[in-house]
Structures are given as C-alpha cells and as structure tokens.
C-alpha cells in the first residue's frame, strides 16, 4: 500500500466525516425510521468509502482520485434559476431544483403528489417512509448510499393516475466554491398508473461541484414509467447518479439516458425485475471528448417471464473515455427470462478509449440471454459509399456519427423528446468530432 492508500484506509473520508459532524442537523433527523435507515446507509457506504479503482465495479472510473479536494455541502441558494430545463416545451408539471434543492414548482398533474425531502418531518405522508431509502442505498451502490445518508434535498413523488407527466429540472447555477450536493428522488407509481419523467441536469460556470443524486423508482404491478434523462452539466462538474428500481408484476420501465456533460459522470443503475412479466428497456448514449462517461448497470431478473433490453452507444473523441458495464443476473426460478445487451462505441481519435464489460450470471434454465460489444472507428465502406454519392468527407463523417446515435434514439422516443435530445446532442457531437489540435 502506498502512504496515500494507507491514509485513506485508516481515516474516514469526506462523506463519513460529514455524517459524523452533521447527522443530527440533516432533514428529518430524529425520525426513528429515517435515523435507522441513514445509519445503515452510512455503514453500507463505509464498506468501500469513496471508491478507488480497487473496487471492482469502479475499476474504470477512479472517483476517489477525482475528489482530492474538500467539498463543502451545498446549501440552498436564494436566487432563482435562470436557465430552462432541456425538455422545456414538453407538457407536464415542472419541479425546478437549484444545487439539488427544490426551488419552484410549476403547474400540477392530477393524481401526482410531491413532498419536498428537505423539509421531511413527522407530518410526511406514510407512503414516503414505506419506500424511502430502500433502493439505491446499499453497499453495491456506495454513492447512492452516501446520497441517502447525507440527503439534504430532493423530492418524493407519488403517482396514482395514468398518463402523468413530470419534469425534474436540476440546474446548477454558477457559484463560488466547490460543493457537493447529496440529493434524492423517490418516485412511487401505484398499480396501473403511468408516468413520463423528464429529468434534466444543466449548468454553467467552472466550479468543481460533485452532484451526487440517488433515484428510487418503485413500480407497483402494471405501472409504467417512461424515463428520459439528459445530463448536460458544465464540463467542470462531476456527476454521479445512482438509480435503484423495483418493478412489480407486469410493470414496464423504459428509459433513455443521455450523458453529454460533466468531466466525470457515472450512472449506476440497479433494476430488479421483481414481479412476473416485468420489463425494462434501457438506452444510453454518451459522447465524451475529455474525461469519463460511465454507465454501469445490474439487471436483476428475479421472476419468470421477465424481459430486459439494453443498448448503450458511445461516440468518443479527443482523450475521452466511455465506460459501459452491464451485469445481467438471472436468479433461480426466473425461467423464460429474456435478456439482451449490446454496447457499441465509435472511437474518433487515436487517444479515445472505451471500456466495455458485459457480464452474465445465470442460475435458471430455459432462458434467453444475449450480449454483444462492438468498438471501432467509422466504417470505411460506409464512408466511401456516402462520398461516392457526392457527399464530402467531413459531411459524410458527420452524417455517420449522427446516424450511429440516431440508431439508438430514432425509434425509441416521440418526436418532441427526439427534438429536445438532438438539440443538445448536436452540439455535443460537433465538439466530440473535432479533430485534435
């Protein structure tokens, strides 16, 4: 062990110290159920601390090395957010967060209740303590555990009607100093209800913020969730989101994740297909030119006839690095499980890198599990084909790069979402495709 490693092993890290000093002042401190879950979560977090590369699930993304400085906990800001969320023109109630804190609520949806978690107390409705902190808070998602234990802000949402639509606009305005925000989102969709969730993270400025978000998705039987998530933070920011989802019988989760910002981003997803016939369909796109864009998933088939699909696409330029990891677990008895994962990456520069790691663990018979990985440069044959039809080389390359991404988005979302994603993606691809100077 190096001196630094010994120091890390012996001393509690930033987050444990924060907990030791501030636990009594956190929102809801003193509520017995919450205190208990928080204590469990900080313990779960302490089993790894802020992960180094020696933690297997984090071997490609060294978060510990990235957090060398001290980060003060984010506090509620007074000034309103000036930027709009990425899906601004699409209907739905809108919750605006600045620095992780719920700042404003615009509009409402029938059958949708919201609770500001920064003011959680003994009057908080029972469905919150029925669910809150039971997902994305275990040792396998250490940052998720920290976001729960140290939660200072966030929102809980309960949906009891079909066709609800909700925006979560996380805005990181410029501020002086480097902060860490530990926020949580709890979404409970009751039996037969459905929600379109549009989550966007946008920001400006040059501070070294670490946004640490934990999201719990509870889908009761036959519930449906369409989740569109755009992470377009400022390049200086580090962003970690841990998602924990639980799907009841016949529930459906459909998600498009896009990570286009932050110099280090990690999306840590654990989905448990708990009820028979539950389905999850994930698409992920990243386009790093510098820094790391990491998605790591665990798809847990725990019941028969469960289905999962995962398609991850990365366009990597400059010195960027894409990390695509996915573990599919089919538990004993989860017969007729049907799972597929495909990771494709396009490397545009000699120093661009992609780490892809699909894994399968199967403990049931009579299942269909497939996976594939493709990492490469632009296809010469396709490039020649387009050029031979008169399309100049730079334009042909651009067309192919966009086509590569469109292949993951085109058939997956409706035109309004498609347009909103492409408005951001276009800019990101223009940058990632630039030749190194």
């Amino acid at each position, binding site marked *: 062990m190096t001196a630094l490693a010994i120091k890390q092993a012996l001393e509690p890290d930033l987050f444990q110290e924060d907990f030791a000093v501030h636990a009594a002042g956190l929102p809801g401190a003193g509520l017995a159920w919450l205190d208990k879950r928080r204590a469990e979560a900080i313990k779960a977090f302490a089993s790894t601390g802020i992960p180094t590369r020696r933690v297997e699930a984090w071997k490609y993304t060294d978060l510990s090395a990235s957090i060398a400085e001290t980060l003060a906990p984010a506090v509620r800001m007074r000034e309103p957010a000036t930027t709009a969320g990425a899906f601004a023109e699409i209907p739905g109630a809108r919750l605006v967060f600045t620095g992780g804190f719920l700042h404003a609520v615009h509009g409402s949806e029938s059958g949708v209740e919201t609770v500001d978690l920064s003011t959680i107390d003994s009057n908080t409705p029972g469905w919150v303590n029925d669910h809150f902190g039971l997902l994305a808070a275990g040792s396998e998602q250490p940052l998720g555990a920290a976001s729960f234990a140290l939660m200072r802000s966030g929102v809980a949402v309960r949906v009891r009607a079909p066709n609800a639509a909700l925006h979560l606009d996380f805005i990181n305005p410029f501020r002086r100093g480097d902060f860490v925000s530990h926020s949580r989102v709890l979404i409970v969709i009751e039996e037969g209800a459905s929600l379109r969730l549009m989550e966007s993270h946008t920001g400006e400025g040059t501070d070294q913020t670490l946004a640490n978000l934990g999201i719990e998705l509870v889908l009761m039987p036959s519930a449906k969730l369409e989740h569109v998530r755009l992470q377009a933070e400022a390049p200086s920011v580090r962003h970690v989101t841990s998602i924990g989802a639980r799907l009841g019988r016949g529930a459906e989760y459909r998600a498009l994740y896009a990570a286009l910002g932050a110099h280090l981003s990690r999306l840590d997803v654990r989905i448990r297909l708990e009820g028979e016939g539950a389905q999850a369909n994930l698409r992920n796109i990243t386009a790093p030119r510098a820094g790391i864009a990491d998605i790591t998933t665990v798809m847990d088939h725990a019941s028969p006839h469960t289905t999962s699909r995962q398609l991850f696409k990365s366009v990597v330029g400059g010195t960027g690095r894409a990390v695509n990891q996915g573990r599919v677990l089919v538990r004993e008895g989860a017969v007729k499980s049907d799972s597929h994962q495909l990771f494709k990456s396009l490397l545009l520069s000699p120093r661009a890198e992609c780490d892809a790691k699909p894994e399968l663990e199967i403990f049931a018979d009579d299942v269909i599990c497939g996976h594939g990985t493709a990492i490469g440069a632009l296809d010469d044959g396709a490039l*020649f084909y387009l050029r031979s039809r008169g399309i100049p080389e730079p334009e042909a390359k651009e067309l192919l790069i966009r086509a590569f991404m469109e292949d993951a988005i085109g058939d997956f979302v409706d035109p309004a979402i498609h347009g909103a994603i492409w408005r951001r993606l276009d800019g990101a691809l223009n940058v990632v495709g630039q030749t190194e100077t």
Partner: protein
Amino acid sequence: MSDMMLEIDDLHVAVDGKEILKGITLSIPAGEVHAVMGPNGSGKSTLSYTLAGREGYEVTRGQILYHGEDLTQLAPEERAAKGMFLALQYPVEIPGVVTMTFLKTALNAQRRARGESELDALKVLKLVREKAKALKIGEEMLKRALNAGFSGGEKKRLEILQMAVFEPKMAILDETDSGLDIDALKLVAEGVNALRAPDRAMLVITHYQRLLSFIVPDRVHVLAGGRIVKSGGADLALELEAGGYERILEDA
C-alpha cells in the same frame, strides 16, 4: 472536345502493395454501353472502385481520363459531382440515416459542388417520387433507414433510383445482377435502359451473361488476371456463356 467519356490507358492498380490491375486500356464513347466480364478474382471490383476513387486502390501506372480530365487526383465526392456514378455490388447499410434524407443530402452536395442552386425538400421529394415509381419503390421504402434490412432486390433498385436522381454522365454498374431473381433483374434492367442517352456512357461489370440479355451492350470486354484479354460486340457475351471463361482464356 473529344466525344470519349472515359479513356483508361495502361492502368495498373495495387491494393495493399499487391498489383491487381496489370495494364488495362479501354475507351468508352458518350452514348455507348460497354460491358466488362470476367471470372472471380479477375479484378472487376478493383476496376470499379478505382474508377470511383476508393482509398487503398493505388494507381501505380497509366491514367484515367474522364472528359479528357485526369481523374486519379480527385476525391470520390469530386468525381460524383462531375457526373461519375458507381452502383455498388453490395450497397452499404446505414441504420440511422433515412433514405429520403440521404438522397436529398447527396443530390444537393453534388449540385453545390457544381455551383448549382440547392433544391428544397419538396422539390427533391417530387423528383424522387417520380423516378421511384418506375422502379416500384414505394414511399415506405424511402422512409426507412438507408439499405438497412433491405432485400437484395430492394438494395439494387435503390442504387438504380440514385442513378436516375443524380443523372450521371458516366455510370458504372458493379455486379448489379448479383443476388437478383429474374423479375427483379428485369426491373433493374428496365431502369438502366431508360437511362441510356446520347450524352451518357455506362460500364456494366458482370460475371454472368444473363444481365446482358436485358441490357444489350455496344461492346464487351473480357477481363482476366488484371488485363483485358478480349474485346468484341454483344455476341462475345453469348460466346462466353456457351464456352465458359476457360476457353476464351486459352484462346487469348
């Protein structure tokens, strides 16, 4: 100005340092259709890729004149803008690019390069629809991703549609007959024949005589071992069909 569309003189081409074409001489006047026939490995595809300017096909000797202009220094897109067109044996599948969008992008890129005004979406749509009808290409196919999941016949028809839309001066058809059943072959041949014109030349590259019963060439050239070993009229194709390549090669 010469009425020769394409003049290939002593063309030597190497791929990965290995010489494939070993001195081809061939001239095609405007208004004529020439066929190049040859067994597998004779250099047919190398010839078509070289004419279209694909990277990795190195001209080590000889020249290619198009309208009297040296082609070898031009990029593929520049050749296309000047009126060259290559229908590929295996058109490339490009998921994520809508066929109609591709047609508009390519047509306008060519027009831009020639200093012509670009056509708006509506004009392109009208033009494409008109040409697509004859090739039995429906609206639905134009909305799909370029060649993605297309059958062999659909891919070849789309190549001919592109030729009809771009209106090239010099069209090269590389094994356009491969993988086609007789109905698809007839449809494609009709499309090609409709484009025969006094100011347009075509080079039809094929392994089999079959296609040449439908697209009757003015001249037939036999390619073997990287050289043209025999040239003749349309009858030469029939002779080949009857006797096979071996006999011709022995004679040569």
